[in-house]
């Protein structure tokens, strides 16, 4: 993949609100993100919201003969140095915690996967301001 964004192309942010097994959203968003990268586009940030935070759990354990979407996303995020945020309000309710939140609320463990950061909706508002395109991948039910 070509990782040098071409000048003149719009910059993108992606919002994923569909869950990992309740929708195809994380998979479609990944295919689209790879197409963006391979056509020289810049991805400013990825924002997980609502059920979409399920992608960012380090405990997701699909059978070994199935795609591990969390790992596949982590690879793209790392390779392309893309910041990825999980909304804190969505995450806490749904049991997705980093170490800091696990400590704060005295929960037995943290489970946020590497490459993802817990943050507020301000990151989404910022995406709307910073990126030329904000593409939303919702649930499909």
């Amino acid at each position, binding site marked *: 993949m070509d990782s040098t964004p071409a000048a003149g192309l719009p910059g993108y942010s992606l919002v994923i609100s569909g869950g990992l097994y309740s929708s195809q959203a994380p998979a479609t968003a990944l295919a689209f993100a790879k197409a963006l990268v391979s056509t020289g586009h810049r991805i400013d940030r990825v924002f997980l*919201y*609502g059920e979409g935070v399920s992608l960012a759990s380090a405990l997701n354990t699909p059978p070994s003969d199935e795609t591990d979407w969390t790992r596949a996303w982590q690879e793209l995020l790392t390779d392309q140095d893309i910041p990825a945020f999980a909304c804190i309000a*969505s995450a806490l309710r749904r049991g997705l915690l980093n170490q800091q939140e696990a400590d704060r609320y005295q929960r037995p463990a943290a489970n946020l996967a590497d490459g993802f950061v817990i943050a*507020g*909706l301000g990151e989404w*508002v910022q995406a709307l*301001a910073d990126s030329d395109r904000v593409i939303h991948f*919702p649930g499909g039910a």
Partner: protein
Amino acid sequence: MTDSAVLVVIDQPPYGDWQGREALDMAFSLAAFDRPVALLFRGPGVNWLRPGQDAGPLGQKTVSRNLGAATIFGVEALYADTTSLAHFGLRDMEPPAETVSPDAAFYRSFSHVVQL
């Protein structure tokens, strides 16, 4: 209505899931950052506007208090789909919303349309 406003759409009734509340949080967040934002209630989502809600017995907080504060917190407008209001027999709305028949021109008057 500002032509650069974001439209956040709610099309499910309240209390059945968290989607509407999270849509509302998005609207409030935009307003908090002084970004113009409006809400549209469409389909079964118009039931958010029904007066007299009490979700206490369901173990949830009643949404109408939140929603009533929308304009105070800077949400520019609340819209409700005329046809959906008729379907669900809604005459009084709490809080009041402007009735619209959303079509291409309506959606095009916003810079972004968000539907969770």
